[in-house]
């Protein structure tokens, strides 16, 4: 499951910032290292909501920062959703 989420995040990052695809790692900051601006970051999170059927509250929009944060957040929400 984690690999599939990481793969999806990787693909989306490459679609939004093609030049940054080779820099993706768990610890990479999506804005500082991969060059996303704040609205591209929101686009990525919104796409994740649609893809995984999760909801990211407004209060979390700023504290998901690294690729690893996003993958973990999607994983935790998708798991919670499946066990509901």
């Amino acid at each position, binding site marked *: 499951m984690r690999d599939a989420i990481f793969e999806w995040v990787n693909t989306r990052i490459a679609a939004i910032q093609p030049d940054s695809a080779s820099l993706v790692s768990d610890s990479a900051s999506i804005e500082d290292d991969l060059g996303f601006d*704040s609205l591209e970051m929101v686009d990525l999170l919104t796409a994740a909501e649609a893809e995984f059927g999760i909801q990211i509250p*407004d209060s979390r*929009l700023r504290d998901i920062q690294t690729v690893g944060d996003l993958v973990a957040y999607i994983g935790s929400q998708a798991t919670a959703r499946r066990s509901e």
Partner: protein
Amino acid sequence: VTVRAAVLAGVGSALPERAVDNVELAARLGVDTAWMESRTGIRARRIAAESESTTDLAVAAADRALAHAGGPAVSLVIVATTTPDRLCPATAPTVASRLGFAAAAFDVAAVCAGFIYALAAGAAFIEASLADGVLVIGADRFSAIVDPADVDTAPLFGDGAGAVVLRPGGPDDDGALHHFDLGSDGALADLIATAARTPAGSARAADPYLKMDGRATYRHAISRMTSSARAVLKSAGWSAGDVDHVVAHQANVRILKAVAQNLDVPFDRLAVNLERLGNTAAASIPLALDDLVGTGAVRPGQRVLLTAFGGGAAWGSAAFRWPRMTREVRST
């Protein structure tokens, strides 16, 4: 049986003379112009002179809309604004008096969706035979509430006003206003907010300036404008592909692009004035309508979709066919 409908009869707008471009603003804020433009699509905005009030802008826009409509009598004036010159009284009575009308007059507070709310109210007054000629004005002077040193908001907003005239007509006339979708979600009240001068629980506001959560506003704007536009299209019985002109609230070109993509409407059908005017709040839609008239881009019978999202959160959409105006050539 509806025998009477509100019909669009004239459009006008007014802008402050002073343009502030990104070069001037970026130097003041200590950011670069590319950063500013890539985030918003905005290159310049008009800023009112100290002596130029929201009322002045509203009167000038209304005057031009009345000329465009052939100078009808007006029995109701509605001003949508978030930046009135005084907290009390409303702006609309002064505007009506300065235009020479002893008319019913009130303001609408629905921030960037204010023009569509006011348009719906004006149309409903005509349908209910509570008014005949109606002036609907969106006028804002956000420079009065934006912190000039705030890099997050100062680049976004500009001042201006736009107005339309409504007249009673038949329900099948082009320009008849039947289809609206209006909504709000007060749980999002903190997205875009300015404190009252004396909020409950404190002697005076700590911070008089507009505060905005840009990230959350961006995504709610895209989602609500998309769903509201879809609702009004359904009400009108149109598909998105039928629409000739989408006139959406001008907050950010990236919101406009996302809404166009969600609706599956080619981007060249969207009116865009934000690159030279910024976000003019309640004025953005009538300013864009006036551009369509001024450039001759809109023709009688064409399908027009309006949609807006803003503070509240409040949102709204309208759909109508463009009418044949009394005067096709602008007098101003």
